[in-house]
């Protein structure tokens, strides 16, 4: 049984020019101990999806879903009291800006002990546990760091402290929203290694949200690609990078400088991501798609298994790289 199941999730915000669907038709499942990457450009709805799961959206947002189940418990039906027992403990989240996620007025030790608060530990035990947690996320001299304030820490150290706080509740699922985007590349490598190690050692499921294809290629087992509020492709990481099936995923990979090596001009995706109110009713990508045909302009394709294979799902009538031999040669 999957740890987390989301089916047909949509999020709507009221705006002065009418309701805006930030996210629609999100289907996703995460197994225990699995590493799922969610990639998309800004405005693709990847963060809103996860904030909806965490119950962190503002009250005016309307969240609808056919299924929203964590470990067999229906998150749509439980009371907010019960939800709080799950969120923050069994499901934890870390964010992009570690510097602004920590409270600048309190020491690191205070904030970690606070996260440990409800576990029935006495003062001394909480302190011991806080030192253990800091040690576990690779902070040197953890005893001394307890009395440090957030401004005395670098970005990488702050993110480690955030991860330690998240581990305090012993989560089954960690949602990491662009955890390394604000960090330097050598520090990014350290934090990604840390996340991978924790996921492996603790059997924790991990959802990594990022705009960076390389970060996903480096870490995730399975990848969900989102565009304009909808998932457009989902498959194993190796499959996606070798043989993308949705034209958007294909174009995104071609636009990377790593893949355009040897060419002077990089391939680009013409046009821009549609704005809040001009998303097409049919396929959302068709105005920018080289392969669009008449059916793409009239009907929205379903997010469906490709050729009956449940491990590859694509929202496209005309998937790319159908010929596996051609795909192999292109590699």
């Amino acid at each position: 049984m999957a740890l987390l199941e989301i089916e047909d999730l949509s999020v709507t915000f009221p705006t002065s020019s009418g309701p805006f669907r930030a996210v629609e038709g999100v289907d996703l499942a995460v197994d225990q101990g699995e590493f799922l990457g969610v990639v998309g450009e800004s405005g693709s709805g990847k963060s809103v999806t996860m904030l909806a799961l965490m119950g962190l959206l503002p009250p005016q947002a309307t969240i609808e879903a056919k299924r929203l189940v964590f470990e067999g418990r229906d998150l749509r039906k439980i009371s907010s009291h019960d939800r709080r027992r799950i969120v923050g403990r069994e499901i934890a989240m870390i964010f992009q800006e570690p510097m602004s996620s920590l409270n600048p007025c309190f020491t690191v030790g205070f904030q970690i002990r606070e996260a440990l608060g409800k576990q029935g530990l006495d003062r001394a035990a909480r302190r011991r546990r806080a030192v253990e947690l800091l040690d576990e996320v690779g902070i040197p001299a953890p005893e001394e760091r307890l009395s440090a304030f957030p401004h005395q820490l670098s970005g990488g150290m702050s993110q480690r402290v955030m991860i330690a706080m998240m581990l305090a509740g012993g989560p089954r699922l960690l949602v990491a929203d662009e955890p390394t985007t604000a960090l330097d590349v050598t520090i990014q490598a350290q934090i990604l290694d840390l996340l991978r190690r924790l996921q492996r050692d603790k059997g924790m499921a991990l959802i990594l949200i990022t705009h960076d294809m390389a970060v996903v290629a480096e870490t995730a087992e399975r990848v969900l690609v989102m565009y304009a509020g909808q998932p457009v492709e989902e498959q194993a990481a190796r499959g996606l990078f070798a043989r993308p099936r949705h034209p958007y995923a294909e174009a995104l990979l071609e636009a990377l400088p790593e893949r355009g090596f040897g060419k002077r001009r990089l391939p680009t995706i013409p046009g821009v991501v549609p704005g809040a109110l001009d998303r097409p009713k049919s396929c959302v990508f068709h105005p920018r798609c080289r392969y669009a045909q008449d059916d793409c302009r009239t009907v929205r394709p379903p997010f469906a298994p490709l050729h009956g294979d449940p491990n590859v799902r694509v929202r496209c009538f005309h998937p790319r790289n159908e010929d596996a031999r051609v795909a192999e040669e292109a590699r």
Partner: protein
Amino acid sequence: MTAVYRSQDAAVAAPLVEARDLKQHYTLKGGLFGEDRTLKAVDGVSFTLGRGETLAVVGESGCGKSTLARMLTLIEAPTSGDLLFEGRPAQDAMRDDPKATRGFVQMIFQNPYGSLNPRQNVASILAEPLVINTRMSGDERRRRVREMLAKVGLRPEHDVRYPHMFSGGQRQRIAVARALMLEPRVVIADEPVSALDISVQAQVINLLLDLQDEFGLAYVFISHDLSVVRHLARRLMVMYLGRVVEEGEGGVVFEDPAHPYTRALMAATPAVDPSARKERATVRGELPSPLNPPPGCPFHRRCRYARPDCKDRVPELRTVRGRKVACHYAENLEGEGAGTLRVAATA
């Protein structure tokens, strides 16, 4: 007429920009009882840049690359060292003809959301350098603004719009257009694509390449993203704690990095290929405080190849295997090229 920086005939053979041992040291006041301390943001950087060339400056936060940009754009005068524009000291040129000198070198910033004034429309943003530095008439300025908008791929009739009406990529095009209004010879680009989405990043990279071809621009391209640098620049300069640790042709450095820090940077850069996963965190610890840099080689405490004497002697730049590198043991780092940046899936 446009104010274009005109060189004296004698200096035509000189490189567009030459930096000789540029240093920027800031003094931090120690307060009532403390001692003043010196922060060596840039500590001895030299390079030359010719017409139509691109020099990439690579390094992580705190390495001094943005301080270098401020010196090159004459926002700050260096503490010591010489900066020559076409063979002539930039300070002299600035004193004699500040308007023309400012037109010689222009800058593009990282964040197009912060670098454009939200209360000015595009026509006014783009015309401002012309108002300040030239004597063009209003009609002439309007014509030039519209021409430039078309050159950077925006609709000329959108000159009445305000920055918030454009996407991030379009805003960066406006910022590029503004930098080009005075027809500079040199453009300093400080992380110009790192705030942009991938598909938009590719568009802006292409634009920068096209404009370089059209105007013969020389770029100093400051970035932390090695894959972008590899695509754009022929020459590469890697900085660490205010010093250049490796400099050379991109091809040479990328294929066979000689400095342990360059290797670590390349190893840390994830490959876009799930079948090429490996351990990437090859440097220990974090950047030391630039106020209190380690003695000897500034990198020795994080270096996996460090030997005992690295903490005693400061390595100077010297030529090893066709590039300059500041490492005592660049010839014999054990372990094969631990971090060559692999390029995934190229035909």
